[in-house]
């Protein structure tokens, strides 16, 4: 399957004569030293990854790690310094302004942290904005906008104005606006970090539901690990503009690439994320197992009930192939092994 988005060796350097940094020994300097020497800030350093069609790809990092810059480079809201980006097989950096506008109008839409709604337009007209600038007729864009608003559950609020809505509802409008043009790719730049926790969870559910319904490719930026783990099919961890690790939530928690990632995922309850694959052991010769095996994709927590009740170890299988066995001796340490969240 060809990737939806391909990024290869992407650099973004801010500052005077930024183009002189990439490809020289300067590029290897740590961020702080580069800044001291040249006054340039390398926001994105040599980042490469692919996003598959229909995937939810999360880019995670602390503030200042370059994740917002990275996502803006995808549609050249920020012009990258070097590297290749292609979306749907077409090179974005080679596009002329007209083609780039077409890309933004029809293929890739974005949802912003601070919503970016137009306060002088009604909710309906905000959602219809993308269609309006494409030159669609008023009736058509309003019909389409109303449909999209219904999709995010705001059909009652069409004629209100953004400042009359709560933060969560405003972000639904932002989401509807992005969906209205029926793009292939949706970019989310920390869309929920300005919302309070309960509403944030609602919105995460909303995104999951929409993803299931409309099946778009999603690139999701966040600094919130929990959000990354719940939403992401795959997660890219960014530090100081560099990619540290790309993998499934399981990969990150089970096999962190370095101490930075390990530190990040330290407080994640492993039993909630890891599957049995990570803790099973090889069967002893001639060992007898329970009749019913468990799939290797079962999350540890979901297996607790059966494993603790079982008389004998349970086989872990991938289809019909037996991969290993599991019993209480493996399970219990995994249940208690994550660090305390409260200092003693």
């Amino acid at each position, binding site marked *: 399957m060809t990737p939806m988005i391909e990024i290869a060796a992407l650099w973004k350097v801010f500052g005077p004569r930024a183009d002189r940094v990439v490809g020289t020994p300067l590029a290897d300097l740590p961020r702080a030293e580069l800044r001291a020497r040249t006054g340039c800030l390398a926001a994105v350093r040599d980042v490469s990854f692919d996003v598959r069609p229909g995937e939810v790809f999360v880019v995670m990092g602390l503030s200042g790690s370059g994740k917002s810059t990275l996502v803006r480079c995808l549609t050249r809201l920020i012009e990258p310094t070097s590297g290749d980006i292609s979306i749907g097989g077409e090179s974005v950096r080679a596009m002329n302004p007209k083609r780039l506008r077409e890309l933004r109008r029809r293929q890739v839409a974005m949802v912003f942290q601070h*919503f970016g709604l*137009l306060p002088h337009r009604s909710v309906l007209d905000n959602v219809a904005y993308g269609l309006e600038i494409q030159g669609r007729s008023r009736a058509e864009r309003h019909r389409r906008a109303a449909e999209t608003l219904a999709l995010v559950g705001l059909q009652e609020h069409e004629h209100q104005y953004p400042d009359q809505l709560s933060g969560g509802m405003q972000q639904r409008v932002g989401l509807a606006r992005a969906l209205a043009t029926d793009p292939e790719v949706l970019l989310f730049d920390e869309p929920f970090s300005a919302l309070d926790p309960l509403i944030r969870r609602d919105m995460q559910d909303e995104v999951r539901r929409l993803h299931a319904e409309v099946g778009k490719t999603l690139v999701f930026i966040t600094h919130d690990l929990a959000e990354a783990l719940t939403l992401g099919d795959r997660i890219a961890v960014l530090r100081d503009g560099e990619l540290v690790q790309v993998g499934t939530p399981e990969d990150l928690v089970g096999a962190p690439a370095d101490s930075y990632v390990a530190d990040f995922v330290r407080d994640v309850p492993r039993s909630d994320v890891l599957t049995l694959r990570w803790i099973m052991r090889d069967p002893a010769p001639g060992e007898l197992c329970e009749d019913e095996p468990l799939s290797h994709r079962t999350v540890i927590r979901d297996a607790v009930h059966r494993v603790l009740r079982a008389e004998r170890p349970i086989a872990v299988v991938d289809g019909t192939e037996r991969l290993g066995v599991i019993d209480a001796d493996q399970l219990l340490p995994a249940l208690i092994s994550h660090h305390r969240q409260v200092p003693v």
Partner: protein
Amino acid sequence: MTATVPPPPVLQPGGRVLGTALDPPAPSRRGRVRSRTVAAVLLVLTVAAYLLFRTDGAADSSDAASFRFFDSVRDWVDANRDTSPFFLYGFNYVRLGVRLLVDTVHGALTGLGFAGLVAAVTAIGAVLAGWRTGLLALGGFLAFGVLGLWEESVDTLVLTLSAVLLSVLIGVPLGILAARVRWVGATLRPVLDVMQIMPTFAYLAPMTLLFLIGEPAAVIATMIYAVPATIRITALGISEVPPTAVEAATALGSTRWQLLGKVRLPMARTTIALAVNQTIMLALSMVVITALIDAPGLGQNIVNALQRVNVGAAFDAGVAIVILAVVLDRITTGAARRTRLHRPARQRRTRWIVAGAALAGVVLIALVPVRETDLPAYSFAAPVNDLVGWIELHWYDVTEGLKNGISAGVLDPLETVLVTTPWWLFVAAVAAFGTLISGWRAALIAALAAAGPAALGLWQHSMQTLATVLVAIVITMAIGVAIGVFCARHDRLATGIRPLLDAAQTMPSFVYLLPAVALFGASRFTAIVAAVIFAVPPVVRLVERGLRDVPPTVVEAALSAGSTPRQLLWKVQLPMARGGLLLAANQGIVMVLAMVVVGGLVGAGALGYDVVAGFSQRELFGQGLAAGLAIVLLGILLDRLTQGFHHSKRPRG
């Protein structure tokens, strides 16, 4: 216990950091002591040099080289007005175009007739700013008829509207460009800076040279005076549009024009409406002054009456100007306030219906044969003159004592010192103290500006004007700071006084001459009084804002340490509001200069009088133009010297 938390930075409204609340003690104290020593040494040196080298302060010659030069320029222009391509294909067409515009506007307004125009203004006020404003407009415009000043008021309105039309046509696009195109903004900024400190008088003479006297020159001078505000505020509105909205619209694929038309302009709407309001107020105050270059309207009545020191005759026109100012201001601020970002569709529909009905009503009423002469007539002239007579009779000792006391005790000595200072010493002192206050760049410009009056041959008049300005600014600051401090400490007083300040700031400067003349007759002191009345309101406002901007946490901390209100004021609030105070001084000086120059009309003499005389007497034209230039130079000198107060003052230490 020692504080380890870094002090919060003191922010000005514009977001400039003026310094931190508590500078590290050691370096700052040393730095302050050093600069104080330098200042003291400089002061001693200046005084010594003055005592050694002072001149006898010869009167300005009436035949200086610069005057002859400007006269010859004038003669050349007069000789070539109909042959030189500059005029044939340039200025003359501009003049014709503006004349056409003025005639069109005039035709439109007078075409409505008295009843029609009153109805139209009422309807506009009601639709744009609510029925109260509509009633105000109705009453105001009827009052023009009652005062017997209908023609003049319409003339003033015509010139104002024409100038505002031009300012908006030129200023709004320029403002957008200034906000969007970096080099345009960077080029315009210093130009606008200088334009805004130029006293109104300075624009007049060059305009008459290029466009002859009359309406076109008046409209263009007014436009030049008002357009910086249009540009500035429009640019501010455009650049204040939140970047998130722009980015979101860009991400959806908007073109540049779509961004401008659908995002930036609609979101800057309220600010642009405010820009139009400011433009109208500035234009009105300038249009009145253009009476000096033969523009028709209410200004004529005032100028004529002032030159005869007949306050009563000027009073009616003054009232009419104030009414016009208030009506125009109410309508446009009301409209700006109502230009909220959105309004429900139903409300929008009713508004169209109301507007349609109002239009029909205006057309109907315009057909009613009522003329302004049908109204009962009333004039304030007699009662006001009686009042002035009564004041002269009963308060003579007080007013005369005040006038003579300040004139003889402060003004005269200061004037003597300044006039007898050799020009090179003055320039050197400006350079030295300027460097100390505002940095060498500003000091260099100030010193060059200080040398100008000597080169123009107007040393004596410039120094006389400067002395008047200095006395006026000291009085202004004393009164302004006192009231400002009071307002900042007493909320109820502040709310009570605010409408007064608002009203004061919308009034054309000419109007302020009237009470001053009523009290003090024609003299230099009259100009000082007018300047003080004119400049105090903005000073009060800036001082109050500066004091109120002191972070409440600091005030709370000082109170919890047991400060008395007096200690709080002197040790915390005033020092921390330094930025606001110095900005107030800078603004005050620029305004005082403008007014002192206008005071040339009522006996302040010096540069202001030279300018006025230049308009009326052909042989004095060169001197008038030179005086206008000297005024501009004085303005630049004072502004640059004091600008450093709030611009380049880095955190001490």
